[in-house]
């Protein structure tokens, strides 16, 4: 059996004693090299999960383990070495006056020796294809470039998991695409778990596995393909299916039969082509 990297065991959380439970008896595992998308309606508890993983919040009930370590007040600094987070607004996470300084910030805090720091800055900025921007001011970059620098800053501290909490929500379409390409490549090359919290339906199709949250509970854990076959149920809990999936459903309703429910343009074109050559 694979060793789990992140584990939630019967976790419940609320922001105060009088407040409603945000998470109710949530259990799941994430494996070391997986890309897991966490989706759910506004207020379903997605972002709370992210904050619990790196000890920004602690659950009232249940336990959370990251790389075998129980997350609590005493362990958070060890846990955070392994967990990198990228948030929604790139402008809120810059500290340096140049891209290089910004990536260096996290390394300096950890007392990394100078030569190793230089190496890590090079490697991580190359990984996100921002190595031509060492001396640029972060604030003058485009949205997608800013988020790539934010990801590089995280990669430089070599975490074992990177959490992107709606990291593409404020970006233009090109920026979104850049980030998706960057993290796909990074996840391919580096030994890394990836957790993306997102409303973007096309982004979800790229993940290995999806955890669907509804009203503070795990509603479904499945592959993107399985998730998007449940269009009626998804709509009921505030979600939706991507364009290709919708079009495939329309085609099914007029009598076409697909071997695999298509998720990408290419898959749907391929299915149509198979039909066409049979006709």
């Amino acid at each position, binding site marked *: 059996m694979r060793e789990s990297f992140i584990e939630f065991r019967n976790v419940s959380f609320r922001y105060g004693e009088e407040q409603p439970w945000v998470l109710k008896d949530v259990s799941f595992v994430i494996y070391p090299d997986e890309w897991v998308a966490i989706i*759910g*309606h*506004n*207020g*379903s508890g997605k972002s709370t999960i992210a904050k619990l993983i790196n000890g920004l919040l602690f659950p009232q009930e249940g336990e959370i383990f990251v790389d075998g370590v129980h997350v609590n007040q005493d362990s958070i600094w060890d846990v955070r070495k392994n967990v990198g987070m990228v948030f*929604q607004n790139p402008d809120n996470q810059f500290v340096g006056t140049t891209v290089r300084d910004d990536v260096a910030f996290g390394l300096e805090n950890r007392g990394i020796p100078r030569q190793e720091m230089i190496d890590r800055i090079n490697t991580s900025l190359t990984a996100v294809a921002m190595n031509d921007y060492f001396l640029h001011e972060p604030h003058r970059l*485009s*949205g*997608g470039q800013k988020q790539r620098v934010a990801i590089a800053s995280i990669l430089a501290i070599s975490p074992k998991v990177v959490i992107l909490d*709606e990291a593409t*929500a*404020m*970006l*233009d*379409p*090109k*920026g979104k*695409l850049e980030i998706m390409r960057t993290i796909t490549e990074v996840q391919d090359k580096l030994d890394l778990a990836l957790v993306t919290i997102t*409303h973007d*339906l*096309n982004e979800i199709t790229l993940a290995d596995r999806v955890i669907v949250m509804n009203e503070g509970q795990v509603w479904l854990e499945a592959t993107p393909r399985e998730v998007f076959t449940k269009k009626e149920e998804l*709509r009921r809990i*505030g*979600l*939706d299916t991507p*364009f*290709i999936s*919708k*079009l495939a459903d*329309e*085609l099914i*309703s*007029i*009598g*076409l039969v697909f071997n695999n429910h298509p998720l990408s*343009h290419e898959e*749907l*074109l391929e299915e*149509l*082509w198979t*039909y*066409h050559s049979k*006709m």
Partner: protein
Amino acid sequence: MDISFKNVSYTYQPNTPFEHRAIHGLSFKISSGSFVAIVGHTGSGKSTLIQHLNGLLRPTIGQVTIGGFQLSSEKKLKQMKELRRRVGVVFQYPEHQLFEETVAKDIAFGPSNFGVDSEEISRRTLEAIKAVGLPEPLLERSPFDLSGGQMRRVAIAGVLAMNPEVLVLDEPTAGLDPRGQTEVMDMFYQLHQQKQLTTILVTHSMEDALHYADHVIILDHGTKYMEGKPEEVFVKKKELNKVQLDVPEVIQFLFKVEKKFGVRLTYHGQGLNEIANELHSIIKGADSIE
């Protein structure tokens, strides 16, 4: 209200080392009652543009006309308050601006600032909360106890309660879940039609622009790059790619169908079921094309 920009430029912090020209030589017309989408990559000048619509900014050069109001660098507009009553702006993440104890008070804040009497305010508050699809009992709750999607709607209701004639929407669905996104856009579209508003939507979503707008203006580096009907503008893949944009997904897919099957399907606002039927006849009839 008809809106026109005539050769408008705006420079932030002019004559300083931080001088930055955000829009430049911008001219366009928006006719009363239309639904216009303004599209462009981050930093293309969209936010600067919309801040001219209710007089938060005055052009450095050129002239902005909104109905009977004129904005230019030469003189301050005397009826600024009246302009702001008639042009409602829903800024990005408008829920960050909620501050009152109850939803009702928050919605009433705008109209009471404009001297609307209390009877009329209660009438409008009720109308606004219904328009955004929230139940009436919510009016007495604290806005901070609501979910993100509900808070967004309360903030929008506050703008609607001013009875604006022009509605400016800056990325109104950012951060909402997929169903919330559709609901909020459908709501704006319905209001647009019912109240015969002039609606200006700033968006990164080519899909929303295609679906709701009847005119699209594309900005690049502070200038107008293209404008026209969505179904005409959004097929120009090369031109759009040049300014970091892309054609909407449905049109992308139809292009790929053409490449693979050699048959062109044009998008003219048809629904997915119609597209499915068209695809069906292509795969059935493709023999004759080969």
